[in-house]
């Protein structure tokens, strides 16, 4: 097992820390290359104490005074790129346009990085740059405005180190998993990336497969889960799987069987705490009235839902209902003290699996009783 990798010491252009993994010299490949090439990018590198006696690095080299109608710059003057549009003197106050411009700048930089391939993904294919600039912004409106997601108990998720988040699964499409991940990324103080374990169907589908990997997910298998937890990642698992996602509306909020409890075994082996999470609201987004098994078999899907709007309204039926959501993280169930030998004992595994399932079920029931209405 390789230890979690150091992050690059350089600062990206916006002043945020570079997220790329660092090499032995504390820099990622991109910044190392930039340094070697001496690219005149305003890219102040933070590592390394300033050389004694050397003048402080000047962030912007003032160019020759800009003269109206002056011909080309003096021959000996190095080409200093200070775009004329950045002359500070007659720059008007842009007011409300300033954030728009900042946003455009960030978007352009992002596009530039993508065009040149200047980003790094981890061994699972997780692409934080893409998540931050594309995937999360796409989901945020759903999270904030459509489902008005409310979170509780975020303090139960550790700020660092491994943990296994286990949740209930419902709603035909795995939006509940995405919302839990976004809650942890946006609202958790440590802005943690939830690395979810997904069904192998996802990794065989075009478009879905690479997106699933880039969002940080991987195949639900013991090897991948163990590897992620050993690397100190926060892993998300939805043990009900398709049984939960594809259950009819009349069985809403009744947790299905929890697989074979493999997730508990992995938690015990790696000593990672289990954080149960209960999601309320996800059952109502696509109320599944019937399941066309034959169509599903034909298409190779685990189920084919019939909801009040799908397939009757065609693509419009893909719009989820705007239920009001509540995501509650429960107190962690600690596993390290049981020791990794406990993973060999099927009885311990069953007991722990039941304990996790009951915790989620009880929390779901409690929050259901407390909610004012489906659409809140």
């Amino acid at each position, binding site marked *: 097992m390789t230890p979690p990798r150091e992050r690059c010491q350089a600062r990206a252009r916006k002043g945020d820390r570079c997220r790329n993994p660092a090499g032995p010299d504390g820099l990622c490949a991109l910044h190392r290359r930039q340094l070697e090439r001496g690219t005149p990018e305003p890219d102040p590198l933070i590592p390394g104490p300033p050389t004694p006696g050397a003048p402080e690095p000047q962030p912007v080299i003032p160019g020759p005074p800009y003269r109206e109608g002056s011909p080309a710059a003096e021959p000996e003057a190095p080409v200093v790129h200070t775009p004329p549009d950045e002359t500070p003197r007659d720059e008007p106050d842009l007011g409300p346009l300033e954030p728009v411009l900042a946003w455009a700048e960030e978007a352009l930089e992002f596009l530039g990085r993508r065009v040149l391939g200047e980003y790094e993904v981890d061994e699972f294919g997780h692409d934080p740059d893409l998540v931050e600039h594309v995937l999360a912004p796409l989901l945020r409106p759903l999270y904030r405005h459509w489902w008005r997601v409310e979170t509780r108990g975020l303090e139960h998720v550790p700020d660092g180190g491994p943990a296994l988040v286990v949740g209930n699964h419902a709603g035909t499409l795995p939006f509940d998993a995405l919302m839990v991940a976004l809650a942890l990324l946006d609202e958790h103080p440590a802005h943690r990336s939830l690395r979810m374990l997904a069904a192998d169907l996802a990794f065989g589908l*075009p478009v879905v*497969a*690479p997106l699933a990997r880039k969002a940080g997910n991987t195949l639900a298998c013991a090897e991948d889960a163990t590897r992620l937890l050993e690397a100190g990642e926060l892993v998300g698992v939805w043990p009900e799987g398709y049984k939960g996602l594809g259950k009819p509306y009349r069985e809403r909020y009744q947790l299905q069987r929890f697989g074979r409890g493999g997730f508990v075994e992995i938690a015990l082996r790696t000593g990672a705490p289990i954080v149960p999470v209960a999601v309320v609201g996800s059952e109502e987004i696509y109320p599944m009235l019937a399941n066309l098994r034959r169509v599903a078999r034909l298409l190779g899907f685990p189920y084919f839902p019939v909801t009040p709007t799908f397939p009757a309204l065609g693509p419009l039926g893909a719009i989820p209902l705007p239920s009001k959501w509540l995501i509650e993280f429960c107190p962690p169930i600690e596993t390290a003290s049981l020791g990794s030998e406990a993973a060999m004992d099927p009885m311990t595994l069953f007991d722990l699996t039941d304990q996790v399932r009951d915790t989620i079920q009880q929390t779901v029931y409690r929050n259901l009783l407390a909610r004012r209405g489906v659409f809140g």
Partner: protein
Amino acid sequence: MGRRVLVTGAARSTGRRLVGALVEQPEVELVVAVDEQEPAEPFPDKVERLAVDLRSPALVRTVRSAGIDTCAHLGVTAEPRAAGGRVSMKERNVLGTMQLLAAAYHAPDLRRLVLKSTTAVYGATAADPAVWTEGMPHETPRHGFGKDAIEVEDYARSFERRRPDVAVTVLRLANQVGPNVDNPLTRYFELPACPTVLGFDPRLQFLHEEDTAEVLLRTILGPAPDGTFNVAGDGVVLLSQAIRIAGKPPLPIPEPLVNRVAELVGRTVDFSPEQVRFLQYGRVADTSAAREQLGFTPKWSSLQAFEDFAATRLRKLVTEEQVARLERDALGLLRRAAERIAREVPR
């Protein structure tokens, strides 16, 4: 007495490089380079060249009588067309290995067998674990190079049982790139546009040619433990990213048409069907065993290795300077527009 090393597949780029490096080592007394092909660059004088097929009796004689103590088997190839068709390739790969090992069985001084294998033995499917370790059970690739490599590895293992006094080290190398490497994948990136499977973006690992030579040299001369080791540069590169670094336009092909296109493209790059699956699902191997037991850490990460290959071998369509300029121009334009709006719209 110095080391006496026999290298098969010596005329190809990896073999040629290894032979050159071996000759320079003071402890190496004799290098026998086996390859029926002529190397691109002639072997150094000290090298004894054996221009024969692996199935030749001359090879058997040499292995037995020349006092060979180390056999580095680099002769397994992944290029059906170059080998004269798939059947001939299998013949060379599998039967050639059998012959070599049969001869090696009777070599009294043999102490070490180094087999250059490939991470292709893991195959490539949607249901693969994200990262392969050496011991993981994997579905056996049923075709092509991957299958050959598995059979060759099996022969090496059974050889180990019959000759327990010989240390057998199997190196599963990731795809090699570098300024001088010529293989189906490097030819793929040299195409004017890179065909991909629509909607898939596999994770790839690369190994720089310098690191390939280094790990082979180290296993031949260093204290090599028995066993199987994945060897790849750190980190992964996505295919889309590699294509962008290569500065080529991607050419996404819908899945149903992929095989037909692969056949067409296959003529120039010598692609086999399992390499197409590789470009759909990708493959990543864990290299911690090589790090810990072999003491080998690649100098080049996957990304650096590929960047070096792209910088030395490919001509980019889009350069960094162009992108930076575009970025600056677009931003300048936006800023001027914003300023004008701010000036004209009274607060």
